[in-house]
């Protein structure tokens, strides 16, 4: 049973992380490289998003997905997809913000130098993001850490249904409330181990990336 919960936790978090990486890195690069009128407002929004209270995100997703909400027809409330959506919203600002600042940390003339060597706009942008890769990995680690350990949003939109939407964090809450401290602690240990393992993998990847420097 515990194994099943751990696997579900990873499934939800990794799915959310994949989607927010695919959206977050391009948006972060865009914010770093393109100047537009409302850019400062956009940056303030991203920074605010980096500290979004999960329970508020959960509430909003809940309302949107509830039967009378705008996306009620999807019948996603209290399902895995609803939890993934909430975690995407929580992790995207972290990945956008950290990607943006690591790209801004790369020398600003690199892009024009790559263009002078014959790079198209797209090639120069791609290689600039690659230069910022070790910072981008930090963004992914931050996103992963934030959502695998998050409880408020997944509890609200997932409902903590045994065998369906129960994940490590919501299971810990339940077991603690029921006084099963041993089980709660064991689940907590697994959660920490998973978080540690994931971060270790990213740190190793980052070390590899640094070596090419």
């Amino acid at each position, binding site marked *: 049973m515990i194994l099943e919960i751990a696997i579900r936790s990873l499934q939800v978090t990794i799915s959310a992380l994949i989607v927010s990486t695919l959206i977050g890195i391009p948006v972060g690069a865009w914010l770093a490289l393109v100047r537009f009128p409302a850019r400062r407002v956009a940056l303030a929004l991203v920074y605010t998003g980096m500290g979004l209270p999960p329970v508020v995100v959960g509430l909003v997703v809940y309302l949107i997905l509830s039967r009378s909400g705008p996306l009620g027809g999807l019948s996603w409330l209290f399902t895995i997809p609803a939890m993934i959506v909430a975690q995407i919203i929580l992790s995207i600002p972290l990945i956008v913000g950290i990607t943006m600042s690591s790209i801004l940390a790369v020398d600003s003339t690199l892009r024009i130098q790559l263009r*002078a*060597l*014959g790079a198209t706009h797209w090639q120069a942008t791609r290689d600039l993001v690659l230069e910022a890769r070790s910072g981008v990995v930090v963004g992914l680690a931050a996103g992963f850490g934030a959502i695998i350990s998050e409880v408020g949003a997944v509890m609200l939109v997932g409902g903590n249904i045994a065998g369906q939407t129960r994940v490590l964090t919501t299971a810990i809450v339940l077991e603690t409330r029921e006084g099963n401290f041993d089980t709660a602690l064991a689940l907590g240990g697994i959660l920490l181990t998973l978080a540690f393992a994931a971060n270790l993998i990213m740190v190793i990847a980052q070390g590899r990336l640094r070596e090419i420097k």
Partner: protein
Amino acid sequence: MTPSAYRLTGIEQVYAARTVLRIPELTIPRGDIFTVLGPNGSGKTTLLRLLALLEAPTRGTVTVSLASREVTGRTATIEDRRLVTMVFQHPILLTRTVRENVAYGLRLRGQRDARKRIDGLLDQLGLSRLAGAPSHTLSGGEAQRVALARALILDPQILLLDEPTANLDPASGVLIEQMIRETHRRDGVTVVLVTHNIFQAKRLATRAMLLLDGELVEDGEASQFFTAPRDERTARFVAGEMTF
């Protein structure tokens, strides 16, 4: 008359309401080593960026004559732009090995099997033993040579160099000057060299111009420019009397 590599007409470049460059008319002949002289802040780098088609002038037209056709910043395709290469005063290398840095432009052009050529060029520039070294371990002079190598490997028709030997040790400077001269002689490349080093200009230039405060003071054949300048300011500059 030699065909031109560049024709500039009515050029004005304005940054934040300040005109940093004004060149009513300028022709750079093909196959020359054309040196752009002037103190810091005189608009030399701005001119080079216009010639590299990396920026569009606020007013006026830069026309580039390539071997096959004539283009402006507006009509140049990526293939046209790839015939012009620029080396920056402060080159930023990618966080990869020296060899990978030199291969960069080739890879953009879809050429992957150039290891022999790259190693030959690295050898000429005294960089052989550093081929596998990560770029961040290089000294300033080594990085500048790598930057020159990554441009030369592309066999450009036009090579734009921004202070390529500024702040380098004399040995690196001599090597880079040799390389410029050799490439020019062997491939007939048009070289536009920005420098504030009058001695370097005298050693390399076939033609020269002086920029002061963004204004073109004078341009001409090296022999005339350095020995019998028409403008009094050029005379003071080439005599080394102009302090900045």
